[in-house]
């Protein structure tokens, strides 16, 4: 007994060293494996973002014979008096508030439709996914065409209503421009989230549905008590990815409306690019970006707080 203990006593430090050694090796390898990605993200994302933040406090311009000077909070003072900035904020919020539930909901409907075990679902999955693989620039050009006053969308409306309704000039009317862009954006992006929902649906065990059937549950009941709870994890993912994409709304605006008419479609990222690139106001654009980051970060934190696991 004593010898055994003695033996163990003798072993222990050795084993500890080996464990520490293994641990250190694990840490080193982990660091080595994470380093390429982390370094690349630092060099190509963190550094330029930090540069942008620094620029926000200067008078830097894209073209200027004089070096940038520190101007304190001047850009922010100007920004908070800029009516277009408030419109950009409002439009971005409007877009996100509509697109997030609309795209998530429609994607779920699509996912349910193509989750059915019928012939040809693969075909439908592919077709619904087609716009996702099409470039946003191409898609925007295409829809600019379709949305014209004499375009296809209005012809379809007119035909369906037997000529009673003349569609509006979708992108030319401040009242319809943003809804038109929302519709197109959902059309383009919904296929991706359909697939994500589909992934979630397929992780729900079939036995749960069988049990519900035995209980004589109706369709709605099944959805409410089996499907919906089973999608909790997927929900967060869908919500977060659509929100992030919605806040970055830019390409469609740049190609289709350039923020007009009457600022009805200007967004924060569009305004940042327009002022920074077209108007050469580098520092001012940087200030817009900085405020934007702070806002998105707060929204993400709130969202994360609201959707936190409650166990």
């Amino acid at each position: 007994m004593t010898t055994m203990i003695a033996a163990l006593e003798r072993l222990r430090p050795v084993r500890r060293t080996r464990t520490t050694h293994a641990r250190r090796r694990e840490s080193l390898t982990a660091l080595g494996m994470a380093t390429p990605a982390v370094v690349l993200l630092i060099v190509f994302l963190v550094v330029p973002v930090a540069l942008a933040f620094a620029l926000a406090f200067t008078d830097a311009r894209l073209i200027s014979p004089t070096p940038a000077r520190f101007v304190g909070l001047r850009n922010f003072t100007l920004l908070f008096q800029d009516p277009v900035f408030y419109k950009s904020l409002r439009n971005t919020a409007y877009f996100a508030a509509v697109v997030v539930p609309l795209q998530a909901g429609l994607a779920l409907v699509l996912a349910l439709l193509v989750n059915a075990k019928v012939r040809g679902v693969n075909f439908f999955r592919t077709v619904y996914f087609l716009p996702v693989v099409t470039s946003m620039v191409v898609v925007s050009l295409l829809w600019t065409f379709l949305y014209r006053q004499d375009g296809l969308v209005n012809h379809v409306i007119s035909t369906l209503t037997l000529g009673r309704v003349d569609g509006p000039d979708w992108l030319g009317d401040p009242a319809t421009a943003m809804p038109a862009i929302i519709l197109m954006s959902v059309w383009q992006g919904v296929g991706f989230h359909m697939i994500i929902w589909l992934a979630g649906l397929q992780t729900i065990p079939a036995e749960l549905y069988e049990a519900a059937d035995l209980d004589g549950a109706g369709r709605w009941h099944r959805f409410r008590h089996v499907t919906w709870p089973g999608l909790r994890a997927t929900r967060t993912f869908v919500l977060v990815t659509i929100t992030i994409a919605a806040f970055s709304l830019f390409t469609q605006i740049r190609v289709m409306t350039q923020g007009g008419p009457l600022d009805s479609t200007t967004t924060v990222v569009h305004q940042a690019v327009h002022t920074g690139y077209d108007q050469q106001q580098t520092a001012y654009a940087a200030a817009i970006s900085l405020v934007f980051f702070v806002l998105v970060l707060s929204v993400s934190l709130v969202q994360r707080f609201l959707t936190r696991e409650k166990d």
Partner: protein
Amino acid sequence: MTSLLKHLGGHAGRVVLALVFALPLVFMLVSSFKPDDQIFGDLGSLRAFLPVGALSLDNYTGVFERVPAARFLLNSVLISTITVVLGILVNSMAAFALARMRWTGRKLVLTAVIATLIVPFETFALPLVWWVNQLPLLRVNGFHLEWTTGWMDTYQVQIVPFVANAFSVFFFHQYFQSIPKELDEAAIVDGAGWFTIYRRIVMPLSGPAVATVAILTFLPAWNSYLWPLMVVQSEELRPVMVGISYFFQLNVGWGQIMAYSSMITVPILALFMAFQRSFVNSIASTGVKG
């Protein structure tokens, strides 16, 4: 009876939706064979979606006269493929370290990586232009390598900044977590190192995640537009999307735009359709957990 009706109803819904999703792209493809006047003329009827009237390949011939389309396509294939390959390697390694290994700072790095998701590229593109031009560049000069400064006007300025991607890391991370940890422990007992576990055990089990990340990295690389306009000056290095702006001249040739758009979209669609079953199923089996 009711179930049959429901079944038919579901099918009708699917078909109507399929039309909504496919028709704009059909319009693009069909219009690419029509002269400009007819494209506008056909806007008012179903003819817009039908290959009728004076069909020809004129728009396509016109495209090749205006744009070095073959060179642009080649560049985009090269840029997108390398971005995808390097991206899978770099991001999966990082995700592996973050998902399956224990080390100090792991949580912090993971949070930081995910936080970068919220930064839209457009907001820091301009500082990045200046910044990439300060970076050292190894280039071939005659028969020896030499160091110079500035990445402007190269292939790598279109590739390297987009290799590391927070979304890919996140996606791999989720997937790796769903692979049982016992596999690692067993391998360690057998004397395997962590890199071997990554290469020989985890990656071979992650085909679906690799396919997903591959497609989601490929698309933005193929579609990049703003960035190459800023950093690429030589026509020989331009990617396909930049070609679109060649058509916006005094008199916009819409037929040619449709033709060019079809040319740069259809290969991707075909590629996707060829792999659609495995791709859709791969995402579906990734089982995203938020």
